[in-house]
């Protein structure tokens, strides 16, 4: 839609050159921007974040101490570990980005609190993968130094390239430095984080 941009000189009148340059920059941004959209009633308040999909685990003192120690470590690949003691449900969320032949793929890996047996329950959500045929599964691995080190499960992609699937890592996460999803047959990386 074309619209008549306002006359800058009419808007600001006489101003000193430095201030004029600042205001003219803003004027240029406003002229090229769309009007901010009106909000419908539906967007008048934020969405209610989904409740946790795993039960809160009551821990023994030993498990709590172990989990607190593990919480002191972070993955080097853009993952920030929060204060898990204030949020007992989700330990961390890893954002996965498409790699190799799947640059349009994306995903998240939500790692829940350590259970009493020492497992890290997880939920992997992916989009944009090539749909799986019978023998074309994907695998989630923990990596160290770009090497596939610990398998955390395999899965099939839906016909639309998505899937949401539970996973598990019975490993010490601070022994690793990243996550990767690979094609089972070729071991080619499709997602990493």
């Amino acid at each position, binding site marked *: 839609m074309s619209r008549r941009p306002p006359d800058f000189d009419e808007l600001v009148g006489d101003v000193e050159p430095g201030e004029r340059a600042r205001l003219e920059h803003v004027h240029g941004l406003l002229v090229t921007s769309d009007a901010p959209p009106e909000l419908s009633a539906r967007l008048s308040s934020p969405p209610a974040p989904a409740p946790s999909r795993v039960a809160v685990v009551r821990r023994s003192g030993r498990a709590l101490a172990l989990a607190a120690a593990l919480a002191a470590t972070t993955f080097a690949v853009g993952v920030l*570990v929060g204060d898990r003691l*204030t949020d007992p449900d989700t330990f961390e*969320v890893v954002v996965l980005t498409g790699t190799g032949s799947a640059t349009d793929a*994306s995903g998240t890996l939500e790692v829940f609190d350590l259970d009493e047996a020492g497992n890290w329950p997880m939920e992997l959500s992916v989009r944009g993968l090539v749909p799986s045929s019978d023998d074309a599964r994907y695998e989630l691995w923990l990596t160290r130094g770009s090497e596939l080190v610990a398998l955390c499960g395999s899965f099939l992609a839906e016909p639309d390239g998505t899937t949401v699937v539970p996973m598990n890592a019975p490993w010490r996460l601070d022994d690793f430095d990243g996550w990767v999803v690979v094609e089972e047959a070729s071991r080619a990386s499709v997602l990493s984080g």
Partner: protein
Amino acid sequence: MERVERQGPTDGELIARVATGDRSAFEELYGRYVRAVLGLALRRLGDRGRAEDATQDAFVAIWRSARTYDPDRGSGAPWLYAIARNAITDGLRRLPEPVAELQDGPGNEPGPPEVAEREWAAWRVHRALEELPAHERPVIELAYWRGLSQSEIARSLELPLGTVKTRTRSALARLARALEGDGLR
């Protein structure tokens, strides 16, 4: 010139609080960014219903990903933009494939870099507008998106022309401060 600034936490501080499950911080962040996210979604998806879906998806993604925000890598606005853009792109992937149209010659549509630059500029502008006090915002909206002159705005708002001019200059200065560098809180 009015120099009263709104006080409050930075976007980055709010994201850090969201990471701990602070619902009130999430609501404040939502207030600051919902129009920017919806504006970006409308540009990319074109359809109001899908854009609203994508906006809600974006804020769910912000809630879920807040722990990945690293303040050492930049202020909150670019991080929020990246999360929102990814969520909206996911919404775009759910759309049916468009039917290709043949063009007789080179198109006049802007290329991807120009589109990305415009989207980022609009994002910043829409966010910065949230910094304006309620009495300044209408003069900007009427001037820039309704095409009214200062005199027409004065008549529309039933204000003296001098007041409209003062408010307009004050609003532009406030926007300049918000948009300079990492000036967004």
